[in-house]
């Protein structure tokens, strides 16, 4: 069962059963972005309030889907709330890097990534709970579930300001 326990870590199941920041925000002033995984029908709606200082003052998540997509969205909402847009983008990059770590690297070492062209996680960015989703990379079809919320958020951010 080790593979499955790696995928469904307790913290993931906790976010799935008790999703954080569930709901909607009035638009405007909030931004709304919608993401869809046509393969499995997972659906995420991200509501984003950004204050005058460029900080995510509030975030809400709606939609439905599997435990991975929903818990990832929940973790994301907790991670970005109160952050500046630059910090959110850094988190996004770090999370994408986590999702693209090559399997062989996972198996052999968590090391320096030399010799591969996959993104290297930035050690300066603390992913917090999100790091628990690392097990997903062993289940390639589920990676899209894990990244759906982040892709949706990126869409929302792109409308807000050109990324640095």
């Amino acid at each position, binding site marked *: 069962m080790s*593979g*499955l326990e790696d995928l469904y870590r307790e913290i993931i*199941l906790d976010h799935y059963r008790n999703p954080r920041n569930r709901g909607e925000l009035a638009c405007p002033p909030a931004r709304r972005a919608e993401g869809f995984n046509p*393969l*499995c029908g*997972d659906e995420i709606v991200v509501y984003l309030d950004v204050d005058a200082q460029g900080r995510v003052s509030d975030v809400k998540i709606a939609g439905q889907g599997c435990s991975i997509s929903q818990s990832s969205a929940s973790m994301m909402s907790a991670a970005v709330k109160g952050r500046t847009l630059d910090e959110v983008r850094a988190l996004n990059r770090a999370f994408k890097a986590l999702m693209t770590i090559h399997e062989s690297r996972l198996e052999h070492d968590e090391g320096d990534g030399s010799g591969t062209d996959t993104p290297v996680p930035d050690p300066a960015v603390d992913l917090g709970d999100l790091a628990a989703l690392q097990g997903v990379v062993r289940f390639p079809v589920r990676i899209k579930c894990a990244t759906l919320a982040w892709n949706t958020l990126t869409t929302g951010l792109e409308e807000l300001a050109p990324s640095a």
Partner: protein
Amino acid sequence: MAAMSPVADLPSRLDVLDVAAIRAEFPIFERCRRRPLVYLDSAASSQKPRAVIQAMAGYYESCHANVHRGVYALAEEATSRYEQARAAVGRFIHAPSTREVVFTKNATEALNLVAFAWGRANLGRGDVVVLTEMEHHANLVPWLMVAEQVGVELRYLGITDEGHLDLSRLEATLEGAKVVALTAMSNVLGTLNPVRRVADAAHDAGAVVVVDASQYVPHLPTDVTALGADFLAFTGHKMLGPTGIGVLWGREAVLEAMPPFLGGGEMIRDVRLDGYTPNELPWKFEAGTPPIAEAVGLAAAIEVLDGIGMDAVRAHEMALTGYALGALDARFGSDLVVHGPRTPGDRGGVLSFGFKDVHPHDVAQVLDESGICVRAGHHCAKPLLRRLGVSATTRASWYLYNDESDVEALAQALDACSDLFCL
């Protein structure tokens, strides 16, 4: 409702097949990664018996050449194997003539052939095409494309809450229709549709009847004339055969009267710089080098199915469906919601369900951990899933190599699923 099924009166017995002996003929069941393989996804694609694998390898080892082209003996042999396969397919579905059997790449291509070759020649703006709400995308998107290009009007036969076709407005819906295209068996609900009844009404309305038999031909005795079809499409890989080959059967007169689909070698009798003359049936519809080894493989698959007997296959699957419905209901009650008819006689061996609040992706993932292969998703029938009010289902489907032990494994793994996701 049970009376709607033309096959409900076949016997239903779990001892008609020697499943252990059958499984022994399928090398894939020797695969054992931590756990033995529990394959419950035959509606997506069936496994292959040794006879099929060997027939294809044997063909390549001893008799491959291009067909219909060489004068040398080897090419003659290859051509003869290919044409024998066509004859075997024709016999299997009781086609009045072998000339009516067209090989395609899969059912999807066969249905596209009808929509585009027949459709383009026979449909104009405002013409009515009738489909059903339970069609696979393969029998839906080609017609949507034709609608986009030609401007035909699409009408749909809906479904009842139990997953049967709603025929209460059949005649009114068919009024003025030029085509009625329907699935003989739903790949999501398992529903066996009353094809003959719809076909008779369609013919009365002057429409041509297109039957998607992708889930039907592999599992039930098929007689194209008895079904009342004008076209009937199915796919090799769901009936023990290889991928890369499908079949379009069409009534000879209808095929004769329509233009070719794809152009190229094989499908012509003569080509000039200013035009071409199409070949005769069925080659008129087979442009380019066909799937020769695949045809040989499909013929081998048909021989296996014939050896066992399609009546026996149906009886076994109907009994196993009854067993599964009963066993899952007894174990999980209302926690497991089965979509589609509750009567085994009304359905094939396809069981789509919702399990508690667990997402089908998660169900399939946990089941995989127990070596159980099921499908999770929309099963290429998005309008149907919308009608059912779900975005995805988990689907278990069986065939002649499955038995009660597979259903038991499924039930046990669902318990594990429950433990993991439900508090």
